[in-house]
Structures are given as C-alpha cells and as structure tokens.
C-alpha cells in the first residue's frame, strides 16, 4: 500500500497551469526525491498532498485512504520558506508546534528535548528564536516537523542554506528515519544530494512528470557509455572508431562511446599502443545528465527557448 498516491492531479492558478496530469506513488520505507527546476510545480504538488490547496481534478490518497484532514497528524512537513515565531523561546515553540500536531504537553516537551540533543542544539533550548543562527533555526524547524513521529515526512528543499556539516547530520537523520520504515519525500534541485540519498525519484518540469521510478531503474534506462580516463603517453585511443566523442583536458579525458560494451576494446587497444593509465572508469550517467537530457527532450523545453535553471 503506497503511503502517498497522486492520481492525475491538475492545478491551475488563474491562467497559469501549475501541475498537469501528475501521478506518482511513494511506498513505505523509501526515500523519494522530487526533482525539478525552480517553478516547475514541486511546491504546488506538495501543497496538494497535505491539503493546503485542493487539486482542480485528480485524486490524492494518503495511507491508502482518500485525503482527509485527520490524516495530517501522521504527516510531518518542512516548508520551503522557513519560519518560526521570532520572539518565542525555542522549547516553548517546539512544544506549541507539537501540541498543534496532537501531542500532549508533557510528551511534546520530552520529545523536543530528546531531539535537541540529537540535533546538537541543546544550548539553544532556552533562547529566543531570533537570537539563533539561520542553521540552528533550520534544525529547530526540522525537529518541529518530526516531533509527532510522522509516518510520512515531507521536506521542501531541506538542505538549502545548511553548511556541509549540518547538511550531513540532516541526511544521516533522514536515512535513520527511512530505516525505521518511514516514507521520506523531499524536493530539491540539487541533483548530487538526490543521487546519494534517494531510492526513487520523480522529475517534474513545467508541471508535468517527465521521469519517475526507482533510482536503479532510472539509471538503467540510460546507457553506460561514458568513460573517464587519466593517462600518460599516446592519446591515439581517443580516435578509436568506437569513440563517439572525446574531450582531452591534458591527460584527463572524458569519452563518450558508441556503445557501453566497447569500453574493454578501447582500453585493450590503448594499452597495446603503450598508453599508461592511472584510471580508466566506465561511469554511470549522473542524475544531472539524465535530468538535463530528459528535460531537453520535452516539448515544453523547446517552447521555453532552451533554458533550464536547474
């Protein structure tokens, strides 16, 4: 039973189509990445998932039931635009938000303290929010989304604005939550993060789903025909008939082959020719490559004049 199931949802604001014919499903225990350039409809999609707006057509199902507000107690949400009450003390704030999610005061307080420890911000507990750094505020907001132990965690751009150390801490926490069997959905336009974290992805562009599936599946659809080589000696192998295209940056070459199985042949030919390799690696297409390729293939991309602000 999928935790979230969107079926053919559509949302139009005035004349702008925000989301069009989008369907996707998120299984329990998955880390799901919702990708797309800015303004492609990620936030609109998320808002429809949690009933902040209602789709014009199509259906939203949460935990196997048609959407209803009472299910929101099982969802944790971190919005893209972070916000906390500036004048409130951190602990009061967390307790208040916990109570709004249906916890009683004692439980909320206990869990808030536990999480502050886990997120390494114990010293902030008694302070007012406005006295804290941006990163700290973000962690508090992160905690606020998790206090009620939701089964579905939705995070809109969770890593934006975090330094690498804190981003790492957050990623680790998300992975732990996933191993506890919770479904985590996050949106981002940073492909490198998704690649490491996600089990499944969906790419949306201009309100439409252009690609979705498990990470392995998505990557499997694209041929492994790229090679990165670090070498000394003759570069004659770059002109091998199986090489479609090659860029040589003084001993570091990026090669695109006509087919993935040609790699061994090219390597053998090069070694026979006396070229010395420090590295010869057949690389998977990165998600970024896939993303750009997919988006470029859409009709809307051509309409857009060939720009992607990913």
């Amino acid at each position, binding site marked *: 039973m999928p935790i979230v199931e969107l079926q053919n949802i559509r949302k139009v604001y*005035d004349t702008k189509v925000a989301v069009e014919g989008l369907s996707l499903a998120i299984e329990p225990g998955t880390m799901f990445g919702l990708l797309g350039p800015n303004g492609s409809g990620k936030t609109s999609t998320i808002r429809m998932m949690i009933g902040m707006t209602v789709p014009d057509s199509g259906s939203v199902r949460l935990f196997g039931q048609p959407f209803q507000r009472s299910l*929101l107690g099982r969802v944790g*949400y971190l919005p893209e*635009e972070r*916000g906390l009450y500036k*004048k409130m003390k951190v602990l009061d704030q967390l307790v208040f938000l916990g109570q709004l999610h249906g916890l009683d005061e004692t439980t909320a307080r206990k869990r808030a303290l536990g999480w502050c420890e886990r997120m390494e911000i114990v010293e902030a507990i008694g302070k007012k929010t406005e006295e804290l750094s941006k990163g700290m505020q973000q962690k508090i907001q992160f905690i606020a989304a998790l206090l009620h132990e939701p089964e579905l965690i939705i995070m809109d751009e969770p890593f934006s604005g975090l330094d690498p150390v804190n981003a790492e801490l957050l990623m680790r926490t998300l992975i732990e939550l996933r191993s506890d069997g919770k479904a985590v959905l996050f949106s981002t336009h940073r492909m490198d993060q998704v690649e490491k974290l996600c089990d499944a992805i969906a790419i949306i562009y201009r309100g439409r789903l252009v690609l979705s599936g498990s990470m392995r599946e998505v990557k499997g659809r694209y041929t492994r025909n790229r090679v990165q080589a670090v070498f000394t000696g003759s570069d004659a192998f770059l002109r091998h008939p199986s090489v479609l295209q090659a860029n040589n940056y003084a001993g570091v070459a990026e090669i695109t082959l006509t087919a993935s199985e040609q790699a061994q042949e090219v390597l053998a030919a090069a070694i026979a020719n006396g070229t010395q390799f420090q590295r010869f690696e057949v690389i998977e297409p990165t998600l970024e490559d896939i993303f750009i390729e997919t988006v470029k293939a859409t009709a809307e991309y051509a309409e857009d004049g060939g720009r992607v602000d990913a």
Partner: protein
Amino acid sequence: MHNVWLIARREYMERVRTKGFLLATILIPCAMAALIAGSSYLMARTKTNSHIAIVTSDKQLGEDLKSKLENGKHSEMQVDLWKPSEMSRASLNAQLHNSGSKLAGYLWIAEPTQAGARPTFEYHARSAGDVSTEDSIESSVDAVVSREGLLKRGLSAQEIDTITAPVDIDTSSSGNMRVAFFVAYFFFFLMYMVIMLYGMNTARSIIEEKTSRVFEVLLATITPDQLLAGKILGVGAVGLTQILVWMVAALVLASTPYAAGLMGGGAAQAPVSVAQTLYFLLYFVFGFLLYSSIAASLGAMTNSEQELQQLNLFLVVPLAFCMVMVFTIVKAPDSVLARVVSLIPFCSPLLMNFRTSLTYVAPWEIVLSIVLMTLTILGVIWVSSRIYRVGILMYGKKPNLPEILRWLRYS
C-alpha cells in the same frame, strides 16, 4: 476547537508576557489618575479671577456690579471702581499697554443720553481672547441691569429675588438624566477606544505569521479559519484582561473619598446600574469580536504593516459613522432611524448599547442585533480565511477587489 484554543493560548501568553503589555497596563491607569487629579485642580481654579476696572458715574450700579463680579457664582474677580474722566481713560489705557500691570481690561459705562434709556457699556480688554472674563462681565451686567430696572418699576428686593431665583427641574422620576447620559457617553468612548486599539493588534498579529513565514507550518495541520478565530480570541482576551485591570483600578480610585468629593454629592450612589454594565459587557464582547474579525480580514489581505495602514480606513469609517449617529440618537433614541441604524451589525455594539442606557429597548431588538452580529462575525471570518489562504499560497501580494472576489470561489 482544540486548535483554536492552542492558537489563542499562545497568542495570549506571548502578549501578556511582553514588557509593553505590563507598561501599558500600569501606566495608563496612572495617567488616568494624574488626569483626574490635574483636571480637578484646574476645575477648582477656573473661576475667573481677573483684575478689571469699572468706570461709571452711577455709584449704585458700580457697587452692584463689583459685588456680583467679586463674589459671584463663577467669578472671583478683583474690581476697581473709577470715576469717568478723560484722565482715568488715559491712565487705564496706559495700564492696559503696560505689561507690568495686572489689569485685564476696563468696562466703560456711559450714562444714557435720554432719560429712561439704558446706559451703554464698552469693554476694553488687554487680550481679545479673554472670553471667560468677558462672559462673566456680560452675565453680571445683565443681571444687575435687569435688577435695577425692576427696582425702578417699584418691586421690592425680596420680590425680585423670588422672580430671578433659578428654577430646579426635578428629573428624578426618570433617573438622573445627566448622569445616565454621561455614563452612556463614557461607555461609548471606552468601547470606541478599545476597538481601535485592539482591532489593529489583531490585524498585526495575523500579519506576524506572514512576515515570519510561520503560516505554512501551521496550515499543514490547521485550517485558516481556525488560525484566524484563535488569533481573534487570543488578542481579544488580552484586551479584556487589560480592561479588567483598568476597571478594577478605576473602581479603587472611585471609592477613594477624593474622587467622591470631586463628582459631587449626586454621584455618591452608583451612577451605573447593573443592567447597564451587563449590556456593556455583552455588546463589548460582540463589538470586539466583530471589529477584530474585520481587522483580521484586513490582515489577511495585506503582507506588511505599511499596507495595513492604508486599509485602516475600513475600520475607522464604520466607527466614525456611529459617532455621527450618536447625536441623532441622543435626541430621539426611539425614532425609526435610531432603531434601524442600531440594528446594523457594525453599529449595534456601539449604538444599541448606547440606546439601552438612554431608553427602553424591546428585547426582540436586542436579540435580533445579537443574531445579526453573530452571523456577520462568522461570515467575515469565513471570507477572510479564504482570502488569507489563497492570498498567501498563491501570490504573496496585496490583491485588488476583482481578485478577492475571484479568490472567494477557489477551493
């Protein structure tokens, strides 16, 4: 309902804990006390005590005027009597232009040119703006001249006293009208002030979530109408708390002998009846909720304090309209106009309450006004919560009227 309560409680606790609330709660009664003390001090001194001169050849008239002005009801002037001559005129004029002299002016009484006609009076003042001295002189001259006229026509001094004694109209059968009127006025202004003050606070507190961007977290669990209702109740409770503190302070002040002496003996028995207080509280609560919900819709439409200032008008205009209507209602509290106007939901809290303290208002009118207000409050909250949600989620800008109308149809 639980969510509304949580929002309201947070709002209340956060506001009551601020230094601003503490300061306002303590300082305003202090200012009130200072004002009462100050005005009573001034009141004691408002008898005209200027120094003037009266120039007349009629000794009797001069003496009468002098005694009237020196020991009158409203004046404690110092009066010199002069004989008319060119020299005295010159000397008095010189004194008027000399800043060292205390002379405020002189009254020149010229003998009538024909027998039986009145003398002519001419007042020369140092300052053209000294109205109170002028008024005292005028009323004293009036009194003295008519008294002399009556004396000349052969009436005895005693008869004249009887004729000119002030009339005292007995209004005790309908309660002390003057006190009732002032109490009604006082309640009216108190309500007006509090609505202005706390209405805007409600609007501000709704903008708070927008500027701090907390609304998105909140809206993930609660609905906009719960948020708005919680805000209105929370800020309202703060207002009520403050008013209760002030009321208690006022009662303590009023029970001191000092204040009782100030109001005069008539106010010694409670000027406010129980019914009046209950009506006040009832209409206060409804008025507050109504105007707060209007303020909430203003807050829902705007994103910053500056934008809110521009829309302030929508809160002020209905209140100003009530102010204008007060004058009509005072004259005829039972007229059709008064009855209709006091049923308009935006006016009921002020005007119906005002009417209840002036006249007998039929129970059905009161019930109807409360039903209408309740419906209006719910309607305004419903509309504002839609504007709020659609506005912040879609554009983050101030909508114009056609946009607002279109938003109301969105789900």
